[in-house]
């Protein structure tokens, strides 16, 4: 391999591609060629660095200089200044705030300082389309070790020792699950990777698949060896076209290197891997529904038992794990279960990836040791709330999860602590909400989601969520009564207790936790007919403040339903009966003369 004095890593994750990183990459190559530097500097496309908010991201090694919001026009300057003259382009560095110094290096960023990237170890460092780069960072070494030195029982005991638990939501101990499947006697077994990532607000699985697909393939092959499977499936959401493309490329490369397929590494272990594209049903993330979907049927959950470990895909013993779970397997094999178990809390070991989104300054993916507090995640890594507004709640666990409040900020994160607070770990989607977010609206939002995604098999789930949603709609439009609150609670308990699968069993959680922690907001909607966060359009009014209005007429010009009247002589007024509460007038008024009440 030729050696290069510098490497330029351009992020090719979905976030940065959306910001134009493909063009940045092309322009960098052109500019380098123009300067005759193309033999000295290599441009590499990597996966997501987790800091998509600041994308497109470009890192220059060996210095580790971290450039943010890079545009194609910046390529010439980076080449001329940094790569030719050796001077850092200050204006493209990240500055946490006006007052603070800009940050030159990757590892100086507060965002990365508290992270411990294990599942995300290669994301942003390697070119996901090049198996050689994965191999250069210890890739497929764990598989080699397993095939040549370890028995299947050794592998399982190492995973058990690590304390690794399922990262897809349930948190079931991975080693135990593998053991059940291994003990199941059959001529045929399957391993499956759950890449359906249905939780809206979570994108760690996507980043791993796009940034480091081989880590998942290798983990699955190790699992297959341990459990005695010779065939596997990756079930990936169709909304992730780039992940599917990179997975396909990775499988083809691994096959051509003899790392997948027949007689892997010359042993008698064979493992064949397929990709199945999902077809857009949230419930298919549930393991039994997912298997029904691979079989070509409607993805409806099946009652358990029988458990997949005994009777799974096509009636054969099967094991299913989440993307992030699989990506943790190789480091555990290489460094040992004890190493992994040395991180985290007593019952929740290792690290967890969180997707930090919503009203927080640094949105992105963070991988942190279990036991870290919510406060550290939001304020140290996340940089606090946008515009320094007041933190109100963190929603964790998606539609099955719940809300954490101010009083939970110092809670050390673990499966147990979150469940005790009425939330769940879920897949690790952490959506931050500030004073402008209405918690009743949030509860309604999640129920709209679960109600639409209920597969309809069980009546309590199908009808109960519908009734709950109708009740919430009444409340947010100012027509709710205090009895509605009791009714909501009753319905919630009924749906929780009598649904077949996790979707129905957890759908009431967002309602229950918001009722528990934000009952006053519900009451304000009912008793005072007011939405304290001024978010529910049924309970707010837009008004023109005559003393501030300079009669410029911009509001009237921009109102989509033409309900604002006035001219240079007559004051501007909004016809409340026709206003659709779109908020356009408030946004366009240059004199802040429109207010929301």
């Amino acid at each position, binding site marked *: 391999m030729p050696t290069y004095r510098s490497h330029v890593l351009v992020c090719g994750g979905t976030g940065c591609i*959306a910001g134009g990183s493909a063009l940045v990459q092309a322009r960098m190559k052109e500019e380098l060629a123009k300067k005759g530097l193309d033999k000295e500097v290599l441009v590499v496309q990597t996966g997501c660095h987790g800091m998509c908010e600041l994308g497109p991201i470009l890192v220059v090694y060996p210095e580790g200089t971290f450039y943010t919001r890079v545009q194609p026009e910046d390529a010439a300057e980076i080449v001329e200044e940094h790569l030719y003259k050796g001077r850092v382009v200050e204006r493209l560095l990240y500055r946490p705030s006006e007052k603070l110094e800009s940050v030159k290096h990757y590892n100086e960023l507060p965002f990365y300082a508290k992270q411990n990237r294990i599942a995300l170890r290669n994301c942003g460092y390697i070119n996901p389309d090049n198996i050689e780069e994965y191999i250069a960072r210890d890739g497929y070494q764990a598989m080699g070790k397993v095939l040549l030195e370890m028995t299947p029982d050794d592998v399982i005991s190492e995973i058990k020792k690590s304390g690794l638990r399922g990262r897809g939501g349930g948190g079931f101990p991975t080693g135990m699950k593998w053991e059940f499947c291994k003990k199941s006697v059959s001529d045929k077994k399957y391993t499956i990777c759950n890449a359906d990532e249905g939780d*809206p607000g*979570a994108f760690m699985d996507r980043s791993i698949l796009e940034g480091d697909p081989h880590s998942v393939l290798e983990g699955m092959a190790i699992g297959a060896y341990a459990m005695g499977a010779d065939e596997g499936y990756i079930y990936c*959401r169709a909304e992730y076209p780039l992940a599917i493309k990179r997975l396909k490329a990775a499988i083809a490369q691994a096959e051509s290197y003899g790392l997948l397929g027949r007689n892997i590494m010359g042993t008698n272990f064979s493992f064949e891997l397929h990709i199945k594209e999902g077809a857009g*049903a*949230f419930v298919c993330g549930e393991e039994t529904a997912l298997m029904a979907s691979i079989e070509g049927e409607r993805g409806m959950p099946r009652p358990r038992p029988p458990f997949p470990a005994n009777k799974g895909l096509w009636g054969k013993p099967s094991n299913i794990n989440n993307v992030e779970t699989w990506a943790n397997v190789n480091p555990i094999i290489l460094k040992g279960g004890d190493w992994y178990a040395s991180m985290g809390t007593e019952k929740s070991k290792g690290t967890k990836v969180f997707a930090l989104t919503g009203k927080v300054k640094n949105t992105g993916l963070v991988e942190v040791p279990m036991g870290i507090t919510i406060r550290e995640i939001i304020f140290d890594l996340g940089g606090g709330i946008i515009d320094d507004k007041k933190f109100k709640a963190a929603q964790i666990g998606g539609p099955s999860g719940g809300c954490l409040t101010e009083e939970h900020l110092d809670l050390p994160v673990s499966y147990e602590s979150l469940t005790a607070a009425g939330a769940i770990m879920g897949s690790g989607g952490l*959506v931050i909400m500030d004073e402008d*977010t209405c918690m009743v609206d949030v509860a309604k939002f999640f129920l709209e989601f679960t109600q639409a995604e209920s597969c309809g098999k069980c009546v309590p789930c199908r009808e109960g969520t519908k009734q709950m949603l109708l009740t919430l709609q009444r409340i947010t439009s100012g027509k709710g009564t205090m009895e509605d609150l009791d009714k909501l609670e009753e319905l919630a308990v009924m749906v929780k207790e009598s649904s077949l699968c996790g979707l129905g069993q957890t759908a009431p959680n967002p309602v229950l936790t918001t009722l528990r922690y934000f009952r006053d907001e519900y009451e304000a909607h009912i008793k005072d007919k007011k939405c304290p966060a001024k978010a529910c359009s049924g309970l707010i009014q837009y008004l023109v403040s005559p003393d501030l209005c300079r009669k410029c007429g911009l509001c009237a010009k921009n109102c989509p339903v033409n309900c604002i009247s006035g001219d240079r002589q007559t004051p501007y007024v909004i016809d409340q009966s026709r206003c659709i509460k779109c*908020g356009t007038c408030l946004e366009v008024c240059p004199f802040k003369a429109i207010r929301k009440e």
Partner: protein
Amino acid sequence: MVTALSEVPQKTLEILEPWRGRKGFLIPVLQAVQHTFGYVPKEAIEVVSREMKMPTAEIYGVVTFYAQFHLNPRGRHIIRVCRGTACHVRGSLKLLDKVKEMLKVEENGTTEDLRYTLEPVACLGACGLAPVMMIDEDTHGRLVPDKLGAIMDQYV
């Protein structure tokens, strides 16, 4: 997606060919059909039913279960506005309303000129850039209603 209706049976047979005698074919076959024609024409369902000896009711059951399949023709460009949680708290509802107003279509509707179909979607996995929408396979993030027009114009 310009395939004439008369070609549907022949094309569907070609799609089916590699799947004969294999299990779990229905969803990949329907995905290929949809990819070829832009939707799942009833003529294609008839061919699948006849060739694979599967009742049409069962096929319709699967087609209607999954949000991805469509029984009617759709626009040349699919606009997916994210309605996931991260986008919701950053104002995606307003964005969706704006797109609806610009295109004069409702959710899951297609413009009369068959240029666009508008679909809300649960999460596009680019939550860091919320609010987000996807047109065909391109993701557009950090959207504000003002930017929409210029973005949509790129898709003719």
